[in-house]
């Protein structure tokens, strides 16, 4: 007979033990995470006529909307503005879709959680990792844009996109794990997140460069502080450097984002593991 398990009301490991357990569970169930990712990709592609083509078309359409808005209506001129803005839309679409998916990643598996014992932390992790495909597909229209319209902007710094993306991934993962757990208790998270994300986008140097926004920061100290603290400020700037300007990413700032994100990740995993035993009861 195999190992004996004791479920005891009194025995819960300490904070470090919980964090270690969380990481160990995610790693130990990597095959399950793989299945979940594949299932997710299959579903996303299967319910529309154009399927996964939408991952290519969607950022292009969104780019067109902003190009019209900013260059025609606000009459601003930035050279190669479509590329300028695409460098921000691509990672932002990745971020928002991952956050939206992971918020409901635990609650949507309600039935399974009540039937089978498995580490719930794999659910937001799988949602985040599945999102990478979204980003990868987005690189196709980016390549198209560069080759067809801006061949002179193609530079070797494009190879540094994964470095910036990795930074974003760590930050996203920390946030996703936290929000997935909170949503079990408060189903409002999705609604709130939608609006917070929109505001977040406008307070990030996405449509404008960080320099243009810093003028605003001088007039409005609150906005200035938010821009300073916003991890997407260095992330967007870095994407833009490597894609649009052909310069180096802001390595120092990215490193700071990674450091803070890793701390956040530990806190998120701890929080998730702390509240995990209540999931089956609350759902």
């Amino acid at each position, binding site marked *: *007979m195999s190992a004996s398990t004791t479920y005891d*009301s009194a025995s819960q490991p300490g904070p470090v033990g919980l964090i270690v357990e969380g990481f160990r569970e995610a790693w130990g169930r990597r095959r399950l995470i793989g*299945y979940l990712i594949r*299932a997710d990709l299959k579903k996303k592609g299967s319910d529309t006529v154009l399927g996964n083509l939408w991952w290519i078309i969607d950022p292009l359409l969104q780019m067109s909307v902003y190009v019209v808005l900013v260059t025609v209506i606000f009459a601003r001129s930035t050279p190669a503005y479509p590329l300028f803005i695409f460098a921000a839309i691509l990672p932002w679409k990745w971020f928002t879709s991952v956050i939206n998916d992971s918020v409901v990643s635990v609650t949507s598996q309600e039935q399974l959680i009540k039937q089978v*014992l498995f580490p719930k932390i794999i659910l937001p992790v799988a949602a985040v990792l599945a999102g990478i495909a979204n980003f990868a597909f987005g690189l196709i229209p980016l390549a198209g844009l560069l080759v067809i319209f801006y061949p002179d902007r193609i530079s070797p710094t494009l190879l540094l996109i994964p470095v910036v993306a990795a930074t974003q991934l760590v930050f996203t993962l920390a946030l996703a794990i936290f929000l997935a757990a909170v949503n079990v*208790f408060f*189903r409002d998270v999705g609604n709130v997140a939608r609006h917070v994300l929109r505001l977040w986008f406008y307070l990030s140097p996405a449509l404008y460069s960080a320099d243009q926004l810093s003028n605003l920061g001088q007039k409005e100290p609150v906005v200035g502080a938010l821009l300073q603290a916003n991890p997407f400020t260095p992330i967007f700037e870095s994407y833009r450097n490597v894609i649009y300007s052909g310069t180096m990413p802001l390595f120092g700032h990215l490193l700071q984002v990674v450091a803070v994100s890793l701390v956040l990740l530990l806190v998120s995993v701890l929080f998730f593991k702390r509240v995990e*035993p209540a999931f089956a009861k609350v*759902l």
Partner: protein
Amino acid sequence: MRVIPRRRPAVPAEDQFDATVPALPALEGRGAPDLVISARDIGVRYSLRLTRKNTVRQTFTNLFRRTGGPRDFWALRDVSFRLVSGESLAVIGPNGAGKSTLLQVLAGIIVPSAGALTVNGRISSLLTLGAGFDQDLTGRENILLAGAFMGMTHAETKERLEPIVEFADIGEFIDAPIRTYSTGMRARLGFAIATSVDPDVLLLDEVLATGDQVFREKSKARVLELVRQAKAIVLVTHDMTWVTEYCNRAILLEHGHVVAEGDPADVVAMHQEHSARERAQKAAQIARYGGVVKRP
């Protein structure tokens, strides 16, 4: 059968249990049966403040509302029992008695708020059959996914894939999305997966009533086969015939307490007596209030 008063001594004496374990023919010559589950004073408390699908607003109202009913609710209280391999334990009782909660505790899905539970061996549970399937994936993909969720290795799942498909016997549908399945087909696939894991303990919640006559016979045979393989089974059911025919022990749960434990026939008799009394009370109430039933 032992009728169990509330708040009985914490850990029942060993000898009492020995009396309740009838020797199955298959167990002869195996020596002492292995203790599979030992539950000591299990209690499960639900907080009524932080419950189902709360919104922030409701939580705040709940926090600030001092009055307004109890803060929590014990779905199970002082539940103690043991299970050895080869046993088939029936859990019976009226709706809302805590039967399903007990299975969730045994499966490790809910951690008891009081008491302790020791489980030796691998537990398989598909408590509500098929409800956890991914609607957009095919039957075959769902088998792989379920196997991974239950912690099987890839090789184990691969090995069991064909037997599961064969047992579920849903033909071409195995490669169609689950959303195209009928309820019966879903239940058959769920049953096939749950019983394929070669578990030491199998937890079944109201699953024998599913499917058509043929499949019901087949699943009966499967469960009996598992019992013969000296695996233990905990079964929640309203099918009293099954309990008296195929289970060798039963516990009666009422309001989260174990009211009686022992020979299935006796426990079933007590359960039926209690429900008859309940029905009579309700009928009397209806007669008195002219159709308006007031909850006690």
